[in-house]
């Protein structure tokens, strides 16, 4: 932005030409006036000089007194305005002529009769001729104009300086003060009323500014306060809670603190069944019940983090006390809520975290509590889970770093698609391997830490929601790879994508997949979507609908990590799976431990009984492969056959397989 001219500059730009114009006009008017006045005066003087000269010359001329005539002529010539004097007699003969000097300008000749007169007679003796110069007139006018100009200029300069000073003191300075205050306010400093004794309108404006700024300041404070509040429930929002928690931790770095992150289960159903207003009303009721129950026990105000998530903080608390609070809260929720005269039952999952054991910052504490919540939710609905740091689960600060890395990888091409082959059970590495398909996996190529495995960052991606763009990326890259492989002749193989509960709940998965298949001209039958058992924890219609849609599209569904998660087989009855993938933990001892071998065989048999194809994961040894083949497994997957390969390398390998 170009800098605007200052008030003084503008003032100068207007005043200076105007002042000059006025000075000029005054000088010209003065010069004209002087010229007129001088002309009249000079004319009068000339007339008088001529008259006196003629009259004085009469007697000497009469008396033929040449000396007196000469003296008189010299006297006349001594006058500054007289350029020459000539005396003529009555016959117009030149008697005498004298000149004052050269270089005289504006000459004007005048002549008068010399008349001698006394009591006895009157005679004309001749003429006196005077040549007048206007040089003195011009000089006088010149000087006069000069002094007028000087005087007017001095007055203008004085007025100008005074005005500038006045402007600076009483206009510009107050305005600059306002400007400074505004800048200070913009940079976050508190509003300070301006003290000024500026007169007149500027003073009024300052007063008005002060009162307006006070109002604005109050409004700002109000807005700041409101920005920390949830409009629906009146509780703190995420931002507000974060601010409060940060403040608390800063104020009490030594005091233990526990937070409970609550998530209402199936809240979507309420919205869908009763409408948005009912959902909002329910949230308000839940908030009020929570506040009533917790009230004074909280060290920070209760907060609503997201649509159906709340968080509460307790000071000076340990893990068991926090667990007690969690249980009390769950119990308290058992009492039904009224929505449109109907009783609605609400349950919730809780995640807990303790300061300073689990995280040292407000951000970390919230993160790990959320992680604990989601972990618990994956395992069992309605559960409370305290965050447990583990080998898998990184310390909070590392998780935050990982989240940053994940962001960067997504945005800066730091992700690598890896593919692990799935082969027919009768394949023999080095002899005959039949590639049935691949599982799409992802790695992060960290600029400092090298390649990061999914075990490290997937939990973080799930907790942060980055799993959604990550999943989309993997799917797009996988489909592109498959299209490429198809063009290279691998036209029957399948590709398997891991799908998390969150991706299913987020929606759009089916549509994205359909669009991708169409774009890459691939058959849906070649796509396998793997979900863990935990996805089936809730009898969620969304999951069911998504599965149906995927099946309708022509895709296959696989249960991943079978046998490790939610150990209910009932979902096998209801949900339309095609493949079951037996988790690697059942395979490790399969060739040595008969009980394990029997379990795997039973699982394979159960799968087949249900009409599912069975894949065993984690095959690392020839014996394991043989046992599984013997037990009737359809496909095998593991390092024994091939490690996950970068996409480009994989294609080359598989073609030559």
């Amino acid at each position, binding site marked *: 932005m170009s800098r605007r001219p200052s008030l003084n500059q503008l003032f100068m730009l207007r005043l200076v030409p105007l002042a000059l114009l006025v000075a000029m006009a005054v000088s010209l008017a003065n010069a004209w006036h002087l010229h007129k006045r001088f002309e009249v005066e000079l004319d009068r003087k000339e007339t008088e000089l001529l008259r006196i000269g003629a009259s004085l010359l009469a007697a000497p001329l009469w*008396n*033929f*007194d040449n000396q007196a005539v000469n003296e008189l002529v010299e006297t006349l010539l001594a006058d500054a305005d007289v350029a020459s004097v000539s005396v003529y*007699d009555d*016959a117009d*003969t030149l008697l005498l002529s004298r000149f004052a000097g050269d270089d005289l300008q504006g000459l004007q000749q005048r002549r008068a009769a010399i008349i001698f007169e*006394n009591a*006895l*007679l009157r005679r004309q003796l001749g003429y006196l001729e005077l040549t007048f110069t206007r040089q003195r007139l011009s000089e006088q006018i010149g000087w006069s104009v000069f002094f007028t100009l000087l005087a007017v200029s001095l007055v203008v300069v004085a007025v100008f300086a005074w005005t500038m000073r006045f402007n600076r003191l009483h206009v510009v300075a107050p305005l600059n003060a306002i400007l400074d205050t505004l800048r200070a306010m913009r940079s976050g400093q508190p509003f300070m009323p301006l003290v000024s004794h500026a007169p007149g309108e500027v003073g009024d404006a300052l007063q008005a500014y002060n009162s307006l700024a006070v109002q604005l300041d109050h409004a700002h404070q109000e807005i700041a306060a409101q920005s920390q509040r949830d409009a629906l429930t009146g509780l703190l929002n995420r931002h507000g809670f974060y601010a409060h928690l940060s403040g608390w931790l800063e104020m009490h770095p030594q005091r233990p603190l526990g937070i409970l992150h609550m998530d209402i289960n199936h809240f979507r159903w309420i919205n869908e069944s009763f409408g948005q207003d009912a959902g909002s009303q329910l949230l308000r009721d839940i908030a009020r019940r929570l506040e009533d129950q917790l009230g004074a026990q909280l060290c920070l105000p209760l907060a609503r983090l997201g649509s159906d998530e709340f968080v509460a903080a307790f000071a000076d608390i340990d893990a068991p006390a926090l667990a007690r609070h969690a249980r009390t809260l769950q119990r308290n929720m058992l009492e039904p809520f009224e929505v449109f005269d109907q009783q609605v039952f609400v349950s919730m999952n809780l995640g807990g975290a303790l300061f300073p054991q689990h995280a040292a910052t407000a951000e970390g504490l919230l993160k790990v509590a959320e992680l604990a919540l989601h972990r618990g939710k994956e395992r069992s609905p309605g559960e409370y889970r305290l965050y447990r740091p583990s080998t898998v689960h990184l310390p909070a600060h590392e998780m935050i770093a990982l989240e940053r890395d994940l962001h960067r990888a997504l945005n800066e091409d730091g992700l690598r698609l890896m593919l692990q082959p799935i082969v027919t059970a009768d394949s023999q590495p080095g002899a005959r391997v039949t590639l049935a398909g691949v599982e799409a996996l992802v790695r992060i190529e960290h600029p400092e830490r090298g390649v990061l495995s999914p075990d490290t960052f997937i939990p973080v991606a799930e907790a942060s929601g980055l799993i959604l763009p990550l999943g989309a990326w993997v799917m797009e890259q996988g489909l592109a790879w498959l299209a490429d492989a198809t063009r290279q002749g691998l036209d029957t193989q399948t590709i398997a994508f891991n799908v998390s509960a969150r991706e299913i709940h987020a929606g759009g998965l089916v549509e994205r997949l359909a669009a991708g298949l169409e774009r890459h001209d691939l058959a849906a039958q070649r796509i396998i979507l793997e979900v863990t058992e935990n996805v089936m924890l809730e009898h969620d219609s969304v999951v069911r609908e998504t599965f149906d849609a995927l099946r309708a599209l022509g895709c296959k569904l696989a249960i991943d990590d079978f046998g490790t998660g939610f150990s209910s087989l009932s979902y096998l009855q209801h949900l339309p799976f095609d493949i079951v993938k037996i988790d690697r933990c059942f395979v490790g001892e399969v060739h040595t431990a008969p009980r394990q071998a029997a379990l795997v065989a039973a699982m394979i048999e159960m799968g087949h009984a249900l009409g599912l194809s069975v894949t065993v994961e984690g095959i690392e040894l020839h014996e394991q492969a043989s046992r599984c083949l013997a037990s009737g497994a359809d496909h095998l997957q593991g390092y024994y056959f091939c490690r996950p390969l970068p996409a480009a390398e994989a294609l080359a390998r598989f073609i030559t397989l």
Partner: protein
Amino acid sequence: MRVLAICLLCLVSPVLLAAPLSVTFINPGYQGERFWDMVSSTMRAAADDLDIRLAVHYAQRDRHVMQALATQVLEGEQLPDYLVLVNEEQYAVDLLEQAEARGVDVLFLLNGPSAEQRLHTGAPGERYRHWIGAIEPDNFAAGARMAEALVEAAPAQSDPLPTLALLGDTLTPASIGRNGGMLDVLLDEPRVRLDRLLTAHWNQEEARTLTAGYLRWLERRNEAPALIWAANDPIAIGAIEALQDAGFTPGEDVLLVGLNWSPEGIRRVARGELLLTDGGHFLAGAWAMVMLRDLADGVIDIADASIRFPMEALDTHDVATFGERLVAPDWRDIDFARFRHTPDGYDFSPRRALDMLMEARQ
């Protein structure tokens, strides 16, 4: 009648008849100055003839001296019967007051109060009881006579005659009268072109300078002078010198007139350089004595004591007639008693006096 009157007077005032008159004259001029010496000498000659004791003081042409002399006389123990004053440059009138206080009768000689002063003084005896009268020459007639002589003698020509008038001054009543007479003639004369009236202050040198200037002026105009009227002889002589300097021949190329009967003037007339010299007014001294004698004797009274006597022009012919007498006349040869008042009045003609002088010599 006259005898009776004398007898009556003798009866009334035997002392007056018995005692001679005492008269003091304050002469304004220098002692040795011809005109004023002539005034004194004619006065003295007449005083002798008329039994008048005369005292003459000279003011040396200094009005302060004149006033001081008058004061001295008026404050002296022996007061004169009559004080004769000349209102030279109009300063004598102031003395009237003083004389009035002392009771001394005053007679003005040659120059009486001017017309302006008359407004103050009134007629003789009117405001000042002791101012008895004034004897003045007819200067106006003299000026006019001189001018007429010039005009008559002027050559006949169609062009106007370039004429110069050289005045003595413009203040003295005598001068004013003379100037007036001259202008009366010359301004009305179509043949005359009066170029200048120049004041020479009775000074010969000044007259010469002025005339030279006039001649240069004429020369620029390619003209030559014709007539020069001079207020007295010295002025006329100054003009003659200037003319001669310029190569003119006075009396032939240029006609001049003078006044005073001065020896030099008379000589110039004799040489033909001057047309005439007017004058004879120095006889006023004698006329004053005659009149005071008559007044003292009661022959006339104050009303008759103010007279204007004629002057006389002497031309070449007169000069030839009177010869050297004119240059150094001895007025004692004349019996001034013969000029006393007659029933026809006074006959104060200068020519009569000259004739008497010639008679006495023969």
